[in-house]
C-alpha cells in the first residue's frame, strides 16, 4: 500500500495529526471545552458548503469561517460563564443549519463532495494539505514550547492566571483559533463527524496513564501515532471510513488500558494484603 501516492500522503498526514491532537486535546479537556471541537467541526461544514456555493477552494472558506466562530465562542463563553455549554449548543446547531441551507442553495450540486467532508477521505489528500498540516504542526509545536508555562497556569485556574498578569483573553482566543484552524485542516481527512474524537481521545486515554502534565502529552502522542497509523491501515485493508476506523481503535485502546489498569491495581492490592498478613504490619 506504500507504493500508492495517496497512501503515502495519508500516512504523512496521520503522523502530523498524531503530533498535534494530544496537545490540543489535553487543553480542551482541562478547559472543559471537549465539545468545542465538535462545534467547530459542525461549523466547518458550513465553511465547506460556502466554498462549494461560491465555487472556490473550500479549504480557505472553511478556515475563515471557523476562525470567526472560534473567536465568537470565546466571547459567548465569557458571557455564559457558568453555563458555557449554551454557547456550544447554539453554535453547533447553528453551524449545521447554515451548512444545510447553503447546500440547499447549491441545488444539490455538491452532495457527493459533502459526504467526503462528513466521513473523511484518504484518497483526496493533496500535497497542498500536507504542507498546510506541516506548517500548522510546526506552529503548534513552537507555540507549545514557548507558551507551555502560561498555558499550564491558564488551564489550572483562570483567576490565578489573571492575577499573575497573563493576558488570559488573548491567550484563550489564540487557543480557540488554533483549534479551529486545526479542525478545518484535518476535517476533510478524518471527517467532520469524528474529528473531535480524534483530537480528544488520545489525551483522554493518556490522562489515565500519567501523573505529570508533560507525561500526558508524550504518552498521548504515542497513543495517537499507534491509533492513527493502525486505523489508517485497517481503513485501507477493509475499505472502511478512516475517521471511523481510527476512532474505534482509540476506543479499543481506552477499554484495554482501563482493564489493564484495573487488573494491575487489583493485583497490587492483593500483593499488599498478602504482605501485611505475613508480616502482621497494620500500617
Amino acid at each position, binding site marked *: 500500500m506504500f507504493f500508492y501516492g495517496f497512501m503515502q500522503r495519508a500516512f504523512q498526514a496521520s503522523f502530523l495529526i498524531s503530533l498535534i491532537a494530544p496537545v490540543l486535546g489535553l487543553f480542551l479537556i*482541562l478547559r472543559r471545552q471537549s465539545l468545542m471541537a465538535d462545534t467547530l467541526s459542525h461549523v466547518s461544514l458550513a465553511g465547506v458548503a460556502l466554498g462549494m456555493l461560491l465555487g472556490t477552494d473550500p479549504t480557505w472558506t472553511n478556515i475563515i469561517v471557523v476562525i470567526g466562530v472560534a473567536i465568537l465562542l470565546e466571547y459567548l463563553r465569557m458571557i455564559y460563564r457558568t453555563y458555557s455549554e449554551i454557547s456550544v449548543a447554539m453554535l453547533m446547531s447553528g453551524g449545521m443549519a447554515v451548512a444545510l441551507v447553503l447546500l440547499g442553495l447549491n441545488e444539490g450540486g455538491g452532495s457527493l463532495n459533502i459526504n467526503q467532508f462528513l466521513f473523511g477521505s484518504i484518497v483526496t489528500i493533496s500535497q497542498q494539505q500536507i504542507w498546510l498540516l506541516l506548517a500548522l504542526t510546526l506552529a503548534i509545536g513552537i507555540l507549545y514550547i514557548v507558551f507551555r508555562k502560561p498555558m499550564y497556569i491558564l488551564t489550572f485556574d483562570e483567576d490565578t492566571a489573571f492575577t499573575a498578569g497573563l493576558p488570559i483573553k488573548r491567550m484563550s482566543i489564540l487557543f480557540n483559533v488554533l483549534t479551529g484552524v486545526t479542525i478545518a485542516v484535518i476535517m476533510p481527512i478524518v471527517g467532520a463527524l469524528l474529528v473531535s474524537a480524534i483530537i480528544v481521545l488520545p489525551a483522554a486515554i493518556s490522562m489515565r496513564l500519567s501523573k505529570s502534565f508533560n507525561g500526558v502529552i508524550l504518552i498521548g502522542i504515542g497513543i495517537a501515532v499507534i491509533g492513527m497509523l493502525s486505523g489508517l491501515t485497517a481503513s485501507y485493508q477493509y475499505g472502511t471510513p478512516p475517521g471511523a476506523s481510527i476512532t474505534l481503535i482509540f476506543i479499543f485502546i481506552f477499554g484495554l488500558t482501563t482493564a489493564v489498569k484495573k487488573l494491575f491495581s487489583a493485583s497490587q492490592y492483593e500483593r499488599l494484603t498478602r504482605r501485611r498478613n505475613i508480616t502482621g504490619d497494620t500500617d
Partner: protein
Amino acid sequence: MQYITVDDLAFHYEDEPVLENISFEVNSGDFVMLTGENGAAKTTLLRNILGLLKPSKGSVTLSRTNRWDEKLVVGYVPQQVSSFNAGFPSTVLELVQSGRYPRGRWFKKLDKEDKEHVRRSLESVGMWDMRHKKIGELSGGQKQRISIARVFATDPDLFVLDEPTTGMDSHSREEFYRLLKHNSQDHGKGILMVTHDHEELRQYANKHIELIRKEDSPWRCFSMDSCKEPSRHHSSSH
C-alpha cells in the same frame, strides 16, 4: 508604600447592592485580616481588588510596583473549592514549581535558586515527601497546603488569601500564621487575608477589617465600620 488602595468602593450584582462605603489601604508590611459573617461578600471584595470584578462605584488601585520599584508580584490563593481542578494531570512538584513562573520564569528554565524556593515552600507545609504524588490523589487539607506552598514559592510582594486555612489543623494554622507574620514584619510583604479564625489571628495581624450588614439597607448589603487595629487578648509571641 501603599499596595492596595480601596476608595469608597461599592459593588452591585445586577441592581442589588452587596458592598458599599468600603475604604481602606494595605501597605507594605501590613498584615490585614478581613472578616465577616457567611455571605458577607468577602470574596467579592477580594475579586474587586484583584480586578476580577469591576466596582460599581469608587475605585481600587493596585500598585504597579513594589517598594524596590520593581513590578509588583501578587500571590493569590482562592477558596479551595473553586481553585482545584481535581482531574488536572500534574504532580505536586509541578504545581508548586508553577508558582515560580510569575517571578520572570515564563520563558526561562527554573534555576537552582527557584528549585530551592520550591523545596523550602513544600517543606514549610510538610508536603515535600508527597512531591511526586498526583494532585488529584490528595485530601482536601493537603490540596490546601500545596496551594499555600505554591504561593510561598512565588514569594510575592502582596499576598491575597481567601480562607487559606480551611481543612488545616490548629498546629499547621499557627505555623502558617507565624510564617506570614515573618513575611510581613521582616520582609515588608503586604498581606490581605479573608478568615474566620480571627480569634487565633488577632495576635499576628496588625489591621482588622470587618464587613458588617447595613441595617438601613433593604438589601443584604455589607459595609465596614472602620479599619482598626485588632484587639489582642494575648501578647504577641513574635
